[in-house]
């Protein structure tokens, strides 16, 4: 009886030597790109707009305004007349400061107008109204 010799199957395996290289590469990418959120803010529903531009992150101070008129800067509730002093302080820390509004879309414009007047008095004149991209 003839014995048929089975041919030896080639071993298949995924090379795992470079696995850690890949992992470290991804790890470094995420470590570098991660920004831990410094402030919590207050929940707002932002309006939508189409012609929006990117806001430079490193000079921006964010003012949150919700629809009840609560104003929050750096997680402190601020009343309208105090906005001026807070922003003056920010201007002293960073000359190129720009103000970024995260305002609820249902806020009445009167509050915004008052805050804008405060910003004018504080000489922080660069303002961005943050919005979501309209699709």
């Amino acid at each position, binding site marked *: 009886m003839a014995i048929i010799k089975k041919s030896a199957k080639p071993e298949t395996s995924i090379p795992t030597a470079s696995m850690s290289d890949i992992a470290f590469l991804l790890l470094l990418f995420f470590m570098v790109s991660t920004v831990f959120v410094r402030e919590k803010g207050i929940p707002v529903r932002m309006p939508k*707009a189409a012609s929006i531009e990117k806001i430079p992150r490193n000079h921006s101070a964010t003012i949150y305004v919700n629809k009840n008129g609560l104003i929050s800067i750096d997680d402190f509730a601020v009343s309208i007349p105090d906005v001026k002093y807070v922003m003056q302080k920010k201007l002293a820390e960073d000359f190129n400061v720009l103000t970024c509004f995260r305002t609820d879309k249902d806020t009445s414009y009167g509050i915004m107008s008052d805050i804008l007047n405060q910003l004018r008095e504080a000489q922080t004149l660069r303002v961005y109204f943050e919005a979501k991209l309209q699709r």
Partner: protein
Amino acid sequence: MIRRKRKDLGGIPTASMSDVAFLLLVFFLSTTKFDIKKGLGIVLPAVSDGTQKKVKLKEDNLTKIWIDKDGIITLKSGGNEQIIPMSELQKTIHQIVKDNPDMVISLKTDRKSKYQYMVKVLDKLQASGAEKISLSTN
């Protein structure tokens, strides 16, 4: 003859290296939040301290837009005043700015009006290429 004891080669085990890396990777993956802010930019006018001269704008170089508390937009350009729907605002303003590049757009919003109406109109103004925009309220 004294037999030398074979020295044990010291080494850091690298088998679990990828485990460690992946653990850290997953941590950063789950905590990363790409916080890209986008919005409409505008530069406010400085508060006049009395030393600056007030520049009077010619009536021809001024277009007034009024948003009332219900979000109805009234456009006043030159002599005529008209209520304009949001959808046609961009086209109209684009034409106005094209005809007169010095045109100043004054956006006046009712204090009781909603913020989103003002942002929408400002969005349309910026999209239409208007560069001289002033914000005010009653």
